[in-house]
């Protein structure tokens, strides 16, 4: 079974149906400074542990979803 992801549209599927979209960046704010923008775009936290991240269901509904995954154990906790 390996890593399985529950897509809210399609149900539980293999992770191979998804593209990994990276960790969820902080929200884009109106009027953020250059430094804030730089941190948001370039400085990833790369945590060993629980991480909110984006996945795109390219072989299914072709929609994005956000989930929380433990990057050490691959255990997925949905938000």
């Amino acid at each position, binding site marked *: *079974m*390996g*890593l399985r992801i529950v897509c809210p549209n399609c149900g539980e599927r*293999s*992770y*191979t149906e998804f*593209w990994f*979209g990276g960790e969820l960046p902080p*929200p*884009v704010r109106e009027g953020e400074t*250059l430094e804030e*923008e*730089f941190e948001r*775009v*370039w400085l990833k936290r790369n945590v060993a542990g629980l991480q909110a991240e*984006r996945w*795109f269901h*390219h072989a299914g509904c*072709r*929609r*994005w979803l956000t989930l929380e995954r433990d990057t050490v154990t*691959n255990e997925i906790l949905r938000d």
Partner: protein
Amino acid sequence: MTEWIQFEGREIGVEPGDTVASALYRAGVRVFSRSFKYHRPRGLYCLTGDCPNCLMTVDGEPAVPACVTPAEGVGRVARENAWPSADHDALGLLWRLRFLLPVGFYYKALVRPRSAWPRVEPWVRRVAGIGRVPLDLWPAEREARHHHPDLFVAGGGAAGLAAALAAAQSGQTVVLADEGRIGEKLPPGPTRTRVEELVAAVRAQASVTVLERAPAVGVYEGPLVPVAGEDFLHVVHPARVVVATGAVERHAAFPGNDLPGVWLGRGAARLAGAHGLRLGGRIVHVGEPGESLEAIRAARGEVAAVRGEVVEARGRKRVKSAVVESDGGRKTIPCDALVLSLGLEPRAGLLRMAAGLPVAGAGDVVAPGCSLEEAETMGRDAALGDMSGGQAPGHVPPAARGGFVCLCEDVEARDLAAAWDEGFRSTELLKRYTTATMGPCQGALCEAHVRAFVRERAGEGEASAATTARPPVRPLRLEDAAAGARHPVEQRTALHERHLELGATMEWAGAWRRPETYGDVLAEYWAVRRDVSIMDVSTLGKFLVAGPDAAAFLERLYPCHVADLAEGRLRYALVLNEAGYVLDDGVVCPLGGGRWYVTFTSGGADGAEAWLRDWAETFGHEVRIVNETHARGAINVTGPKARELLARLSDDHLTNEAFPYLRHRAITVRGVPCLALRMGFTGELSYELHHARSESLSLWDALLEAGHDLGLVPHGLEALRLLRLEKGHILVGQDTDFDSTPAKLGMAWAARLDKTDFVGKRALERMAPIPLAQKLVGLRFDGEGAPPEGTPLAAGGRHAGHLTSSRHSPALRCSVALGWLRAADGEFPERVEAGGRPGAVVPTPFYDHVGARLRA
């Protein structure tokens, strides 16, 4: 019926049940390869596919283990890495010069002068290694098949079969893979009988898939296990893995241990027992008497069974005598075969790469030499969730006193000692410095010896821990490594059959099949430049964006102005990421009523959809995005006579005044409603007709028929690549890199920094003051024949970039190219050389610089 193998100019007969190795051995072949570094003669040794000694070129494929390859159906076999022949290899001289080639010599010798290494390197590369990759062979395309079982079991011995059976009986789905046919290696006896019972019970379970001649080549995170089957690369995504890959007879290290005539017990037993072949006239058997000794005794030959420690094997091209030390003292025994039954070492490669994953071992791989009952119990326990089945191999052999520790890489015991003295004092450091355990066997034979060596000096601990093994644990074909790289779903446009009827050669373009040419690229090219042509561009990414925020969304998304576009106009648009790098390009058309039609490239459409949807969510805009890529067809009508052709099929106003360049109109062509886009990728007057996919055939046929007397010839991708290059239009992915900004591509005009915002604006603003270190430029070369794409550029004797696109231009009668040019001392060169051909940096477009033809 007799089969024959062609072996280096000889014909060799094959008997039923033969492997390539046993057939060659029967015909008198004793030297099966020459070693990696010293070109030592090597003979059959393990016969279980674990050692490198019988890696041969079989039907053009290098590094095939001959001892586990059935001879049936094999045509041609040759030995590797020898000159002029493996029997008489002149490079065997290297063994005598070994004092010049100490461990790691290539790190230390030939460093000064700096010019030495480049001169010697090609020679070293020719001399060292195993086999040659045949560059003229086009590899077979291999498809990947995915499995998602609860349990994957590697190995079809007693432990593996018991695991599969127990899992299936408890309701789990199972995939079990064995590298051979299950049971084929076992001599008749109780083990074989039990394995046959178990395999029958396993096959009776519908929830078990059994793969044979299918080695598991690695365990990756996921877990994910690639299995190189005969027909497919099986990609297994199990919840848990049981490794039951058994054990290898222990490799022994002593001087002369690599001579032909020295055998591992199971190998000797297999050759004598299964193939009925004679090992020699005087056989010395050292170690535990057991099944091996019985099998050897059954074959002809005088066998002396000896207990004790082998100190040395003597001989030059094969073993002549063995020196054995026992309680009775040291004895030299003349022999022509020396068989070693010194115990078992786990075949633990898969376990040694699976740290931290839900993977358990069972049977000989964790408890070498365990009984049949113990193996089955371990298998059942592992299958039912006991993941404690030991990951680290336990015991170690006696530390090596001499000889070859690693047969694959020609690493001797003294090499380990030398490396130790230089300060490489752990298994992982020794591995990297000496390359022991890094050869084709991935440590199957030598890993325990490296551990024993360190343990003797540093004791038990981190320094002497087992090294991490790396995939593949078995030789893997390149086509298997690439299996599934091709998208398994083949996408076809509605016109696919028409293209084939017109004689098109089809090529892959992403997941799409597209016509490369209909047979005459030049005729297709000239039809566009002089008359009129059509092309199936249904593969373009096509999206409808609608909703209250659609205009605001696209304005904030694209680097060009969008909101000011009046209905009926269209604009070329780059797709950027937040870092300001170009991901794709396409067109934006306002359809009116808050609806927008946006297109992307054929290859970029999938990623572009993710990009659109990601930003729509990120901005929180209320928009609806409909992917019409597969719902709509598109045909580009292009050439000076394009308007004349369309006028024959349409009553709509097509004059330049009514329908100018960079506009779109809804028109009807022979009854087919089309959204027509006036653009100019080819550089000529063009109408891109987007329409319902169901109407593609009738539209195509109508255009083809009506254009016949105008000289219409449809064109394929190859003509298009030439046409667009003459216009200097980029192909994203071919001319761009992962860090291509609009400015580097000479397209700063397409990113309007005067806009309030767009994706990537901040990054481009940051980069704007930095002088460009490289840029994409147009290049012109005189004379026939364009320098090939990828050719490095030189200027003033220095590297100055490379070509990304190049073609001979029939219209301009010279070669034109796009390429990346590097600045030297802040200046971009004006003249360059590509493969010795002088060229000039020139502005683009090369053809019709002012764009009069596409506005005509």
